[in-house]
């Protein structure tokens, strides 16, 4: 195959070996359509099928969507004296709207300053019951003690939100992503921050429900930080419950150790690996600062630059 960046005779840049990436590509859905959401200029009564006829709320876009659709969300305006406006709503992605993509438009490609989304109250802004939801370029923000994103799975095939969920280039500030039993959740380049005072930990909580297992959770190239100069209250990644297997945490960066004393608290994980990650605490202790259960740890470094064995 060609080396990176070489332009082929047909004018396309060639990259190395794309064949292994063919698996996740979604092919040949002739019914797939894009939908558009614009909180400033849109209307929920509009069709949503073009930017000029955009929906006003994300829920309206999800409701109008069907399997495999892509929903593009326009960022809101900056309000002088107030700041960046946010989509303030609690969205439920129902079971039969599977393989949906929700994608934020952002000129800077910085998820914190594009589409910003917060709950309407003491609520969860995004509850997912459908498999295969994909999020890109969204900045979630919360100052309430409710999960930011809930991937629900009841073990009875009526809620399967934790199967195949993927998230890329997003920010989660203030509270956590809860992952119920499921399979194949992938989080890549997601920035997790605690609330400004550290009291709500931006992070990930995995639980098992209905006696089912949580398998093949992949967390890669993510960042985990505390609040504004304050350490997060609790562990950034907490995986508890029944059967949790083949969890991969790789190339992640963790800031100051949380106040609870643990970066990662996995109490019942079998298999899996923690690799090539950095922890801000100097002289990291594999036992005191981490609870990995059955996970292998390899290639990690701590704040003193030392390799952690």
């Amino acid at each position: 195959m060609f080396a990176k960046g070489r332009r082929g005779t047909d004018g396309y840049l060639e990259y190395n070996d794309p064949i292994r990436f063919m698996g996740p590509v979604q092919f040949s859905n002739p019914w797939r359509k894009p939908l558009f959401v614009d909180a400033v200029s849109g209307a929920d009564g509009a069709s949503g099928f073009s930017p000029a006829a955009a929906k006003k709320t994300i829920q309206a876009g999800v409701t109008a969507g069907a399997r495999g659709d892509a929903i593009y969300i326009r960022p809101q305006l900056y309000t002088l004296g107030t700041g960046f406006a946010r989509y303030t709503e609690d969205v439920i992605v129902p079971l039969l709207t599977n393989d949906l993509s929700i994608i934020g438009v952002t000129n800077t490609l910085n998820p914190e300053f594009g589409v910003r989304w917060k709950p309407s109250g003491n609520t969860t802004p995004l509850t997912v019951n459908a498999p295969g939801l994909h999020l890109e370029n969204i900045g979630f923000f919360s100052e309430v003690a409710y999960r930011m994103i809930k991937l629900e799975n009841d073990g009875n095939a009526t809620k399967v939100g934790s199967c195949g969920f993927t998230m890329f280039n997003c920010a989660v500030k203030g509270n956590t992503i809860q992952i119920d039993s499921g399979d194949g959740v992938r989080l890549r380049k997601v920035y997790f921050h605690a609330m400004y005072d550290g009291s709500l930990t931006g992070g990930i909580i995995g639980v098992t429900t209905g006696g089912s297992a949580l398998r093949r959770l992949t967390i890669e190239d993510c960042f985990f930080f505390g609040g504004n100069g304050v350490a997060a209250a609790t562990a950034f990644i907490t995986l508890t419950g029944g059967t949790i297997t083949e969890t991969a945490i790789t190339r992640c960066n963790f800031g100051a150790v949380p106040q609870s004393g643990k970066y990662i608290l996995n109490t019942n994980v079998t298999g899996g690996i923690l690799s090539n990650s950095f922890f801000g605490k100097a002289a990291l202790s594999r036992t005191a600062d981490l609870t990995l259960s059955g996970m292998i740890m390899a290639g990690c470094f701590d704040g003193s630059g030392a390799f952690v064995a």
Partner: protein
Amino acid sequence: MANIIIRKPGNFGKTRSEQEQNLRKEWGPTLSDEHLDKIKFIEKRAKEAVGSDRNFIGAIDADKIK
């Protein structure tokens, strides 16, 4: 003379790269130029492999191409 473009539902683009290029004219980008390039490459390979010119590729997959 003005050109009037009437789009049917789903006519915003058959692939992610087409939708991205149309979206950039209206609202702005959802992909970096590098990711857009990689997605175009995957689309080309996908069309060669399965003959379909309709697909949707997430940036999470394009990001893995080196």
